[in-house]
């Protein structure tokens, strides 16, 4: 069972001009099997939330906590958080020239499990996970994210999600830059992962489009570094019609 609890989270981004507060008290509990969509305008701090929870060195948590199954993540290094069961599908996956997808996946799996995966089943697992994302066999010989199309990068992220099968996943704008076919493929992957029933999913998105394929348990509106409204999927439908403006104005007047 996997519960992700974010409590009163305050985060600064480190810039050359000094610290700049971005997150101003985020509270969110994601129970096993739930999918929480976090929606907000550009610059609201959605990606900061994702990166701060994963431990990116550019962000500093100044207050609050994040626990996964009771384990305090904010005290752990980036790799320790991943080994505690956290996964971040990135909006801009990073190129690692000269490191093949196959080598990367095997190294990650070995690090997470503490032992190298069994060769025979592993190769099949990798081919299966890539195949379900419609990435062909030659894909595993390519350098990680190097020369990948936007869609290939995102499908590679979700292939990792399925293969590494973490306790909790934060998907940071996985839908951005995808055409409708790729969006369906990616959504199916997320749904398969979530259908296991005991995983926690945080789906960060700017658009409502992906919510046609992935049904969220809850929708949260994120403005100016905090959650300002919560509801079911009907909230996303309202946003589709009215946009973020009312929330942005309300936050500005608060």
């Amino acid at each position, binding site marked *: 069972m996997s519960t992700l609890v974010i409590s009163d989270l305050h985060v600064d981004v480190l810039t050359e001009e000094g610290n700049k507060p971005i997150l101003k008290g985020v509270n969110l509990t994601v129970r096993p099997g739930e999918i929480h969509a976090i929606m907000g305008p550009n610059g609201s701090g959605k990606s900061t939330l994702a990166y701060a929870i*994963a*431990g*990116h*060195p*550019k962000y500093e948590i100044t207050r609050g906590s994040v626990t996964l199954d009771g384990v305090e993540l904010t005290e752990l*290094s*980036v*790799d320790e*958080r*991943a*080994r505690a069961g956290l*996964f*971040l599908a*990135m909006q801009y*996956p*990073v*190129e*690692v*020239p*000269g*490191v093949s997808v196959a*080598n*990367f996946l095997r*190294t*990650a799996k070995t*690090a*997470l499990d503490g032992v190298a995966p069994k060769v025979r089943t592993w190769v099949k697992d990798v081919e299966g996970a890539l195949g379900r994302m419609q990435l062909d066999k030659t894909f595993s010989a390519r*350098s*990680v994210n190097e020369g990948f199309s936007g869609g290939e990068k995102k499908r590679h992220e979700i292939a*990792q999600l399925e293969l*590494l099968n973490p306790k909790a996943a934060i998907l940071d704008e996985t839908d951005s830059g995808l055409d409708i076919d790729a969006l369906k493929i990616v959504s199916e992957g997320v749904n398969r992962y979530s259908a296991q029933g005991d995983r926690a999913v945080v789906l960060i998105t700017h658009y409502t489009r992906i919510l046609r394929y992935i049904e969220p348990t809850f929708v949260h509106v994120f403005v100016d570094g905090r959650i300002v409204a919560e509801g079911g999927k009907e909230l996303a439908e309202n946003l589709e019609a009215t946009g973020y403006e009312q929330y942005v104005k309300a936050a500005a007047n608060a």
Partner: protein
Amino acid sequence: MPNVAGAIETIESHLHPEPSFDVAKHPMPTGREEIWRFSPLKALRPLLAEGAPLGGLDWAGELPAGVEMRKVPAAEARERAIEPPVDRVAAIASQRTGDAVYMNVPAEAVIDEPIVFTATGTGQQAAESLVVDFGRHSRATLVLHFQGSAQYASKYDFRVADGAEVNLVYVNDWDGDAVHGGQITVEVGRDARVRTIHASLGGKAIRIAERAMFAGPGGEIEQFGIYFVEGGQHVEHRMFVDHNAPHTKSNVDYRGALQGHGAHSVWIGDVLIRKVALQIETYESNKNLVLTDGCQADSVPNLEIETGEIAGAGHSSTTGRFDDNQLFYLMSRGITEDEARRLVVHGFFNDIIRRIGVPAIEQKLLAQVERELELVHGSTATKDHE
């Protein structure tokens, strides 16, 4: 048609002095000269001194059937050379060569297995001249593997005739006190294809002038290099590609990792595109990964363009530390920081090694990189946990 002649300043060519066998034409450097300003003159001192002929390294290797190799008088090597020495070390190498070596790969010979020679220094000062002719339409791979210790000055000439396909591999795997300086000149024949791979892994000071020129149109040369420079070590590759014929191509890509106090790498990437060299294509790249404080990487790409009618010309140079985003990405998948660094460095070199296209050499170099990584592993880890 891209015309870059107007966009890029044409500079006076002070980097390629008139080559000469006459040592007097190469005065003792003071360290202020453009071609010497990065070099450790003190370490190179024995290689700059005139004197009696010296012996060579201990060479071992198997010669395939049909390939001829013999000792020749130094004077004959000078006559067969593609060009005279361009600096004092090469001039001294030539002057102090006792017996020179001449190798000939006959025309149309196709030699699948790499020709591998191991040259071992025995702690002595040494000077050698080597001239190799690769005949028309021949195909061969020559690997020169240096080890042991020496103060070694060398002058090598590789003439690749029309239509030949040749790989030249130099592995500088010297002991920690070795000093090696010299000149390697490659002439690329009409429609010939040459690939050179230069791996510098050991030694106290290495300074090699690598020069390439063409004997006709349509030739191609690719030059790949990797170097691992440790504290107190100096590794200097001075590249010069002379596009002196039309429709020729060159691609130079050198990558190095530096770690430890006083680790110093120098990469000079000169390209000259002459008036006659229409429709040529060239790209030069140098990347340095600085693993610790106290290292210095000098990287100087330089294009001189005398015609605007070219297909493409460019260069790039980057020197930096680990990319935080790469480490973050790998670590966010559970990979430890040490392992992530190892993967990034491995990838950095593998990116070059995989393009070599000679499996035996790729495997050998990957193993060498693995070994170097094991050596640096502890100290980079210490560094990062500060």
